[in-house]
């Protein structure tokens, strides 16, 4: 990801310029936010192609409802609320079509391990190489996150990827701020467990 200096112009200023008809300002917003929004969606749906389609939908929706954006609002809070709605709509459609989502159990009665649990391999057997430990760790975190229950995962992603404050997450998700914080805490504790398992494993390798 190419780092973008946020000090130059704020997202909100770019959004206001876009509201005034400045298309370049919108291109700047796309450049800034396409990767985090893509990752926010990717960790909830199946497959990069779908995630990219949904990111496109998110930005189209941002343009269509640009007039609703108030200059005192936070752009990320507003944009991630749209992104969350887009992914939830998609997940709902998928569940209606009986496509397996990350949270859906794989057995006939849905009581088998979820796709997330299966992908979150607790003991990665392959590529056991000290050089690859950094990359492995990244994969481990991704798997651990994908293994989280949906409520915890979305809070974790909003906080870690979107950098949305807890107060705003509460607003987006529609639950009290304390609930958001406890969901975040559970998510971090799960991550902590996965990491400690991995550390034990890495230590055994040395």
């Amino acid at each position, binding site marked *: *990801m190419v780092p973008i200096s946020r000090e130059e112009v704020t997202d909100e200023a770019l959004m206001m310029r876009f509201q005034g008809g400045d298309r370049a300002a919108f291109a700047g917003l796309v450049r800034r936010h396409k990767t985090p929004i893509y990752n926010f969606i990717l*960790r909830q749906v199946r497959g990069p192609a779908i995630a990219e389609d949904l990111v496109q939908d998110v*930005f189209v929706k941002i343009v269509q409802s*640009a007039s609703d954006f108030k200059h005192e609002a936070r752009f990320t809070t507003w944009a991630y609320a749209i992104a969350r709605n887009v992914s939830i709509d998609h997940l709902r459609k998928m569940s209606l079509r009986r496509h397996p989502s990350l949270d859906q159990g794989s057995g006939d009665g849905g009581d088998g391990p979820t796709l997330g649990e299966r992908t979150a391999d607790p003991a990665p057997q392959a590529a056991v190489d000290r050089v690859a430990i950094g990359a492995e760790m990244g994969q481990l975190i991704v798997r651990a996150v994908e293994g989280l229950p949906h409520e915890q995962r979305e809070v974790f*992603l909003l*906080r*870690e990827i979107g950098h949305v404050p*807890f107060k705003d997450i509460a607003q987006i998700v529609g639950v009290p701020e304390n609930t958001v914080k406890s969901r975040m805490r559970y998510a971090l504790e799960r991550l902590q467990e996965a990491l400690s398992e991995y550390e034990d494993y890495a230590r055994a390798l040395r």
Partner: protein
Amino acid sequence: MDCEKFDQHVMDALYDELDELTHAAMKRHMDSCGRCASAFAGLRAARDAGPLPLEEPSEELEARILDAVEVAQKKTPFRRKALRALAWAGSHAMRPQLAMAALFVLVIGSSLLLLRPKTGVAPVRVTEWGQPASVHQEPPSVPAPAALATPTEEGDARRLAEAKAGEPPRTMVEATKDTAKEKSARAAADPEDSASAALREAQALQRKSGCAAAVGKLDEVGARYPGTPAAHAAMWEAARCYEAAGETEKARELLLALRAAKGYGDRAEQVLAGLETNVGRSQAKNAIPMASRPAAAAPPRRAAPSAKPAAPPRADDAQEPAQAAPADAVMGR
């Protein structure tokens, strides 16, 4: 701070959303509480272990997004475009310079509005209070000495005017204090004055153009200034005109109304009696020459018959000044 409070704030501390004071309190608590200290250390380790690695989307995603957005913008409904324009205008309106300018204009404008009406208000108010006062025993409350003086002048002026027959004379104009503005102001202040002015106008018209033309005006004077002597005089004249024109019903109406008026009661009664007999006769004969009618039904003073309906009042006035006396006497009061 206790462990419960610590648990409430631990996430805020982890993501730097805590104020310094609470942060310091948490640190102090962790120094004394092993459980909270290790919980915080574990969470911090999980957070720091590595931020979630971000995967890059494909290269062409940005171009795809911009294309899709352009297509969507072309389809943007008018309502949204309008709203966007409004939002843009709103963002400009919020700028401080514009707000200050608007405030300035508002303050100046409102102070001008507040200042202006003061000049014209007072006389209007006097008018409104003066109007409903009773006519018969009205107190000479209207202060203008000119207004007080006019009624007495008016008698003379009227006689002069009648003698000079027709020219809406200077004397009259002088008597009513000349300018239209004053006239209207006085008309509002003193209904009796304006009533007699209107009566004079109507009478002038009567002399000039005859009974038929003036009767409407006379009627109007009677209706507009009910109870004033001038109105009574006008009604009297109108009744005579109607009588002369053969419209006995209208004449009767006016005379009936006049019976109650001071100085007209007897005369009205007499003419009414005459009318009654006239009606009877006209029913019998169907048509009677106008000239013969007053002879039969004339009140003692107003005996002068005439073939022309326009003539009598003038002839009366010239020959019998006494005829004008009741009206003048009342007006002179």
